[in-house]
């Protein structure tokens, strides 16, 4: 087990990816990216629109195959993973997911158990425990009997988190989980993810947009710029006015609060 702790859960080495386009040059979205995620890390992935954040997540989850370079999960190249086995380790909370009508929340969360399914028609006691725990951990236990159309935006997001947790992954990839949520719900969700990360020793890679939320949420920040890693490190080292100006072209002023937290304030002038 000692080697397992030292080994990264996910590795990208020299990974490039471009989307093919009709009659034109392929669109290069990810270029020569190196990234390692250690077990139990909490990492925020930042970057402007089109900088390759979603593509990077999809490369890690196996939804896309890299044109060049190597993507490994738990030390094995993605190509060697069977889909089901990979889904037992890696869960994805997508940017957009339309929940099918007619299923209760408990049934939807139970769908997260699919990679672990052992019985043709039924569920095991393990499945029931995992679903119960996922619902509790995602603060969605009281939503179990509801239908998707009866959920508010914040409740919906909790259900999606519960679905991902039911999968009992080691690596959780979140694509803008705070999208469409108001500030209070954004904070509540990120708090919850941090708690889960600590409780379950879950490795979390989350695409976020708000720089301050990202800095408060994750000890490590990876900044993408035009498909390349522009900066990778402790959030206070990465999120400086200089790097922000370079990547987003926006001026920010550092502000220190009474609690010694450092924030970036937007300078519109």
């Amino acid at each position, binding site marked *: 087990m000692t080697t397992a702790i030292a080994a990264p859960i996910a590795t990208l080495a020299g990974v490039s990816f471009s989307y*093919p386009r009709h009659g034109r040059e392929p669109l290069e979205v990810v270029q020569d990216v190196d990234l390692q995620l250690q077990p139990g890390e909490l990492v925020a992935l930042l970057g402007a629109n089109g900088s390759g954040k979603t593509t990077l997540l999809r490369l890690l*989850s*196996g*939804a896309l195959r890299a044109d060049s370079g190597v993507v490994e999960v738990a030390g094995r190249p993605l190509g060697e993973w069977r*889909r*089901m086995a*990979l*889904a*037992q380790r*890696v*869960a*994805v909370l*997508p940017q957009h*997911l*339309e*929940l*099918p*009508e*007619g*299923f209760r929340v*408990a*049934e939807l*969360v*139970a*769908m*997260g158990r*699919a*990679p672990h*399914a052992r*019985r*043709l*028609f*039924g*569920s*095991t006691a393990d*499945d*029931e425990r995992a*679903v*119960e725990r996922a*619902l509790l951990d995602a603060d969605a236990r009281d939503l*179990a009997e509801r239908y998707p159309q009866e959920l508010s935006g914040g409740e919906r997001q909790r259900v999606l988190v519960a679905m991902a947790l039911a*999968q009992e992954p080691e690596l959780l990839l979140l694509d803008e989980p705070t999208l469409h949520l108001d500030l209070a719900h954004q904070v509540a969700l990120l708090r919850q993810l941090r708690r889960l990360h600590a409780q379950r020793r879950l490795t979390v890679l989350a695409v976020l947009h708000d720089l301050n939320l990202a800095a408060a949420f994750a000890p490590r920040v990876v900044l993408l710029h035009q498909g390349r890693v522009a900066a990778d490190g402790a959030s206070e080292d990465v999120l400086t006015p200089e790097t922000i100006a370079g990547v987003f072209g926006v001026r920010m002023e550092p502000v220190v609060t009474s609690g010694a937290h450092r924030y970036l304030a937007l300078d519109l002038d």
Partner: protein
Amino acid sequence: MRAAVAAGEQRQLSIGLSITRTLLVLGGGGLALLALMVVAVAVGSTSVSLGDTAAILGHRLLGLPVAQTWPATAETIILDIRLPRVLTAMLVGGGLAMAGTVFQALLRNPLADPYVIGTAAGASFGAALGIAAPLLLPALAIGAGTSLLGLGVVQVLAFAGGLGTVLLVYAVARSAGRVQVITLLLTGYAVSAVLAAMVALLMFLSGRALGAIFGWLMGSLANSTWPSLAFSAPLLLLGFVLLLARWRRMNLLLLGDAQAASLGVDVEREKLVLTLLATLATSAAVAVSGTIGFVGLVVPHLLRLVIGPDHRLLLPASLLAGAGLLVLADTGARLVPGGGIPVGVVTALIGAPFFLWLLRRSRISRVELGA
């Protein structure tokens, strides 16, 4: 049934099907279908009493020791004429409803039916060719008498036409190893249009066969025989078993391709397998009955509204409900004075307004049933 047992434990959180609901839907549905079958076999131009019908069926099919008190003609009518027709109606109706369920899940479109990606047009073209060819090209020397595996030329061509068309549509719609739902639908539509034009051309040219082609297109169970049943029954039942075994993947596909993939489903492969299995069942049904409409659209749609979208229950329930609906419709079609009318006319005439009525009630019934 293990599913139902596991879910039936008295726990606060229920993640599966409840045993009572499963029994109610499938057990109740099965019994109702059996009763409907006996009644349907009993009624007709020559009426046989329900008691005699049950006795004949029990004696001859289940080997029950019943003393023979019925006339021999009754036995002939029941066993050689009505029973194969009623059983064919059950299989065709069940098969179409099941295939419709699969296509609605696969295409994530509640308006999809088993014919949507070209099965009907392909089968119609095959059948029209089979009907018209002997008249247009007498030198081929194939005719109504030619048979293969107990099937007529028309049935064989209809089956091959349905299956072949879907394979063609699938191959055309596929690009870079992926098949997108919208491309599949549009390709199916375009290929169907071409085939429909060719059917129209055959009808125009064939003269004498016009009526036969038209009758086939409307869908009829009047020519049901034991041999045609022996051909379609194994295909439909095999399709059902293999599809039911994939219920979990069908549920996951409702979450969308990307999420299904991240939950371990090989999405492109699954789409192909489901399309093939559903098309196999559809083609087997259409080959022996013609293109009967509405069953494959209405039944899965309504059942989903009433018992929910879980394919574990929805697939077997649509098999039962589709079977029941078509037996009912065909019995009605048979009883129309003057030798009956094609069942396809009945399903459309009664099915469509019924569908509208239930659609308006659907929200209420879902709450009432506590589904």
